[in-house]
């Protein structure tokens, strides 16, 4: 959305042929009058990044994972991401009042190609260096394997030429993205994302399809050694391109339609959506095999954790960096209460009975940790929670309490969760674990949804906005924040209790600080304060990339998981700080000024409103003016 706000004082474009065009846009820039300095700079940055990626061993490791059989592997994809990004970025113009905006044309393509070639040149350079010097001592991945990969097994000279060429072509494609009309861009992205998605979801779709007895189509789409078949890829590309054209605006239209509904009709629409999603989630696992169910269960456990943290961070605005503490307390208390092998006390309660104890214990720990922490603000609070998260883990690890929790040996032989004699939920049957997790996710969603729309939720909002004022308006900020802390703790403990029944053992090493960080990243990435966002965030990060210890769909990524988490988070904060599927409120907080400006442009704010809805006052103003 490009707003051109009329301004009288803004800088005027310098007089010249460009400024005299009647339209807003100036003619395209001549293709070879490039800003070579900018190209060199961005290209160099891209080259350094690409060399870094290569030396992180990502291309070699990911080469085993095919996207399209024999044509493209994830490894080679990781080598062309940056030329594309840089090539697309280099010709980017900000539409700004008073600065001429040139219609995109060959200039962008040439610039992109040049910039991409610089990045490709970086790889060529790397190939030359690897061939001539041995730097394996400090750089463990400085290997002939990488050189061969870069050279397509055809020698250094070939590598040099091919990467310059590939860089230029990919960069030009990136530049082309600025030129093509929106529909073409849309088709392109849909096709690319569909192909990528189909390749990423391979194990999931294969598994499901086999469960439904559809081996035929699967064999047609997917190659035996992984990746899409060429014919399958072409079919998918055509199919998704058609869908992109036909379905243009449909999704948005449907959403706008639902949003425009009022009262009961709207509730019905939402209810329908929720029931449909629920039904899919209940039916899907029936056709899925063990691995898929395992994956779903892991994602579910993190959804549950993220929903809990979302109450604390997203709703009440308390930055808790030690959330893993509650996961740990939930796991350990469930373990102690259910396992026969737990050291000091072993009541061997049935899981559901133990759960009551788990909730009470975690609630108490939440209060205990929260009480001193909650009086602090901002950064101090974050640091102290970080500390408490570690303290809890170290307590479970300590010799002092090893009589209770087994120290580094942890607690093993934890029985599965018995569901009222109906079923036994344990790690050997991931499907049942998923259903249990699903049920608790439903509870957590209900809890956050209801609380957000109550006086407590409003008080959380007020505290998040301005704590001093909230207190002056009669809100007991300490109690309200403590409540958020405890609710979050209890939701996290559900996840812990299921985790211990699923895994069958708990060790302090499962509750590293990294878990807190990952959950927080999930919440931020998905969209703070947004239930749907948090679920989507878990699905993408945990499902695709994998959790701290759990493999995701792209198991090849496991080594680079944190690197990619970091990169995604940085990109998200720059491009879309409100998250993947943001809450309305969070968007408002981050884009207050733009939204106020939009409203002003639409004439919706109420400056000068005395004139239109209060004639008497308007008359009064005239009188004042005259006197």
């Amino acid at each position, binding site marked *: 959305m490009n707003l051109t706000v009329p301004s009288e004082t803004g800088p005027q474009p310098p007089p010249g042929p460009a400024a005299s065009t009647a339209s807003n846009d100036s003619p395209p820039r001549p293709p070879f009058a490039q800003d070579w300095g900018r190209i060199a700079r961005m290209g160099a940055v891209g080259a350094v990044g690409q060399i870094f990626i290569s030396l992180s061993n990502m291309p070699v490791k990911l080469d085993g994972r095919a996207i399209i059989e024999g044509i493209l592997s994830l490894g080679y994809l990781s080598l062309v991401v940056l030329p594309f990004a840089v090539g697309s970025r280099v010709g980017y113009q900000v539409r700004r009042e008073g600065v001429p905006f040139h219609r995109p044309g060959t200039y962008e393509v040439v610039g992109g190609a040049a910039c991409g070639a610089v990045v490709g040149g970086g790889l060529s350079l790397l190939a030359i260096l690897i061939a001539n010097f041995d730097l394996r001592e400090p750089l463990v991945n400085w290997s002939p394997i990488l050189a061969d990969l870069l050279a397509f097994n055809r020698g250094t000279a070939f590598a040099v030429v091919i990467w310059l060429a590939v860089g230029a072509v990919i960069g030009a494609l990136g530049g082309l993205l600025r030129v093509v009309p929106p529909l073409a861009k849309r088709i392109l992205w849909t096709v690319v994302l569909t192909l990528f998605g189909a390749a990423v979801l391979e194990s999931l779709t294969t598994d499901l399809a086999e469960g439904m007895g559809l081996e035929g189509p699967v064999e047609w789409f997917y190659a035996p050694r992984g990746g899409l078949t060429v014919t399958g890829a072409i079919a998918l590309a055509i199919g998704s391109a058609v869908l992109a054209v036909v379905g243009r605006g449909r999704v948005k239209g449907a959403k706008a339609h639902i949003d425009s509904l009022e009262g009961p009709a709207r509730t019905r629409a939402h209810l329908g959506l929720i029931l449909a999603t629920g039904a899919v989630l209940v039916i899907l696992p029936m056709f899925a095999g063990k691995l898929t169910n395992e994956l779903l269960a892991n994602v579910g456990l993190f959804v549950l954790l993220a929903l809990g943290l979302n109450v604390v961070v997203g709703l009440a605005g308390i930055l808790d960096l030690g959330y893993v503490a509650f996961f740990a307390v939930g796991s350990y208390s469930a373990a102690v209460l259910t396992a026969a092998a737990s050291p000091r006390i072993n009541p061997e309660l049935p899981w559901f009975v133990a759960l009551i104890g788990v909730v009470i214990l975690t609630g108490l720990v939440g209060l205990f940790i929260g009480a001193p922490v909650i009086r602090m603000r901002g950064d101090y609070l974050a640091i102290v929670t970080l500390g408490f998260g570690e303290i809890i883990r170290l307590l479970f690890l300590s010799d002092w309490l090893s009589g209770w929790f087994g120290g580094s040996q942890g607690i093993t032989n934890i029985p599965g969760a018995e569901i009222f004699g109906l079923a036994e939920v344990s790690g050997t049957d991931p499907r049942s674990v998923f259903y249990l997790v699903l049920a608790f996710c439903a509870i957590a969603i*209900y*809890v956050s949804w*209801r*609380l957000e*729309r*109550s*006086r*407590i939720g*409003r*008080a959380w*909002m*007020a505290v998040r*906005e*301005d704590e*001093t*004022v*909230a*207190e*002056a*308006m*009669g*809100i*007991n*900020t300490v109690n309200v924040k403590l*409540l958020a802390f405890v*609710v979050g703790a209890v939701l996290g403990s559900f996840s812990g209790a299921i985790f211990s029944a699923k895994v069958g053992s708990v060790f302090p090493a499962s509750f590293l600080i990294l878990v807190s960080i990952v959950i927080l990243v999930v919440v931020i990435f998905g969209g703070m304060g947004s239930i749907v966002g948090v679920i989507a965030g878990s699905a993408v990060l945990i499902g695709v990339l994998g959790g701290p210890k759990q493999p995701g769909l792209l198991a090849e990524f496991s080594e680079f998981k944190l690197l990619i988490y970091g990169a995604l988070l940085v990109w998200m904060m720059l491009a879309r700080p409100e998250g993947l599927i943001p809450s309305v*409120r969070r968007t*408002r*907080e981050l884009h*207050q000024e733009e*939204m*106020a400006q939009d*409203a002003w442009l639409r004439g*919706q*704010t*109420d*400056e*000068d*409103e*005395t004139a239109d*809805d*209060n004639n008497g*006052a*308007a008359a*009064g*103003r005239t009188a*004042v003016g005259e006197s």
Partner: protein
Amino acid sequence: MSSGDPAEQPILETSGLSVDFGGLTALDGLDLAVYPGEIVSVIGPNGAGKTTLFNAITATVSASEGDIRFEGESLIGLDPNRVTARGIARTFQNVRLFANMTVLENVMVSQHCRTRQSVVGALLWTKAFRREEEEIAERGKQVLSFFGSRLTGYRYDQPAFTLSYANRRRLEIARAMATQPKLILLDEPVAGMNPTESAELTGLIGRLRDEWGFAIVVIEHDMEVVREVSDRVIVLDHGVKIAEGDYDDVSVDPLVIQAYLGHGAAAAT
């Protein structure tokens, strides 16, 4: 009623109230009383300690000496939210709304200390909970309607930051009203408003007392407004009360004129 009915007990009373900010004495042994149904103006040059007086009453800053009594009971040592629960509400000199909450949510959230439903009620979606939610919304709309159509209708659901400056000030007053106070403290309610708007708000301050029965203390620099609304005027300078009485008496008091002229601020006329 220039100083209230002496037989009546003051609703708010400070005695020897002092506030220190590390060496700077913002309030120095202040005695004042506000009677039920009264509108008292507090005036004084910039930095006289007017806002500090409000902050001390609402426990936002703590008094270093002296006592503050509300309906005969001391407020010293209470948390700000307890003070509000006792029945004192305020607005802020530099409007401090919950900017990202909607207009209606702003007046709903400030009823927090008057409502009781807990997590259990919200989760079980009990009848009592739903009734209370309805009442909260109802009362919110009622206080908003005090300002005519400006904060009603489609504006209920607009975030507060989209409001015009004058409407933000109005919403702040509405938010204070929604806490169901007995005493309202208004810190420069017409600052930044045009003459029409401020004339209108002056009328509303009178109606706040007459129709809603609040006692009101108002800090104001606009002498026109002060003359219109006040039953009594208290003049502060350097944290000390230098004059008190009718507007007409106070405005000719040599000490007051001296205080204003001596500070080079806009003189009282």
